């Protein structure tokens, strides 16, 4: 969450509402899948469960054009620096969804090669449990993310250099 200052500014709340309305309804996910969860993410993107109903069907392969990073799969120690670099190369404002137990906390692999949770390398907004969470679970997580974005105050970040909490 963005650090809310002591007294909330009321002047720009309508602008906040407008900006967050625009942001949350056109989240472009980064087309990057790691393991089994990626297949469920693609199944959610396909026509049966259809993420396009929430404005998210455009899977951008390059981080430069994506603003949502769905970490779908096991984050291994070899892949961790790459995920960090991908996250840094995404333009602000950006959000991260940790999909599946592996991304949330290492999942069924307490081994030497797996990073126990993606939040050890990048800040995560929404955690989705499940080992290959079903498309309904992923959609529920994404809707929760949209509600979270709706409560953010982007204007405070823009005008007052109130930098986001993950730096």
């Amino acid at each position, binding site marked *: 969450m963005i650090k809310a200052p002591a007294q909330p500014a009321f002047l720009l709340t309508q602008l906040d509402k407008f900006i967050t309305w625009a942001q949350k309804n056109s989240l472009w996910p980064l087309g990057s899948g790691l393991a089994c969860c990626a297949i469920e993410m693609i199944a959610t993107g396909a026509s049966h469960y259809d993420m396009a109903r929430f404005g998210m069907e455009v899977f951008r392969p390059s981080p430069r054009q994506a603003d949502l990073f769905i970490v779908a799969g096991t984050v291994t*120690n*070899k892949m961790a620096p790459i995920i960090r670099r991908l996250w840094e190369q995404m333009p602000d404002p950006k959000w991260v969804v940790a999909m599946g137990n592996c991304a949330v906390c290492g999942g069924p692999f*307490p*081994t*030497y*090669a797996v990073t126990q949770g993606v939040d050890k390398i990048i800040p995560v907004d929404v955690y989705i449990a499940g080992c290959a969470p079903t498309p309904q679970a992923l959609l529920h997580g994404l809707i929760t993310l949209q509600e979270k974005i709706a409560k953010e105050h982007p204007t405070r970040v823009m005008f007052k250099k109130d930098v986001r909490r993950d730096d």
Partner: protein
Amino acid sequence: MTIDHPALQAVLDALAARFNDRLLETRFEKGELSVRVARGDLRPVLAFLRDEQGFNALNDIIGLDNANAPVAGRPRFSVLYQFYKFPDALRLRVVTDAAEDEPLPSITGLYKSADWAEREIFDMFGLRFEGHPGLTRIYLGDDFKGYPLRKEFPLAGE
């Protein structure tokens, strides 16, 4: 040794005829024939199997750390080569042993699919293969210390 599998019996006889005392041990369990040879004889035996006996496909190379059940007089690690004879579906397993520092002969010359399999065994057990074109770690980063599939290596890593 007589086994109730005519085709494999023929192969075993040919092997015994060619390398009689160098076959240290032959076992036939659950319909699978496995032959143990010393490290030095590996390449001639495999060349013989491939050229004369027609085992033209290397299926897999399996590394084993016998630290938990050490056999007196045998080195700690053993490497199993699983072979195939294509048209008539025969399987054969050749086993060799090696200690930690003894290099094994690389068989990338005989079978191209051995390249990655040997790199994987080096990555997981630390066994060297001399004559391998590029023996580097295949899974873990080069900065990874230790060999994970050794018994003393903890599951969650150092």
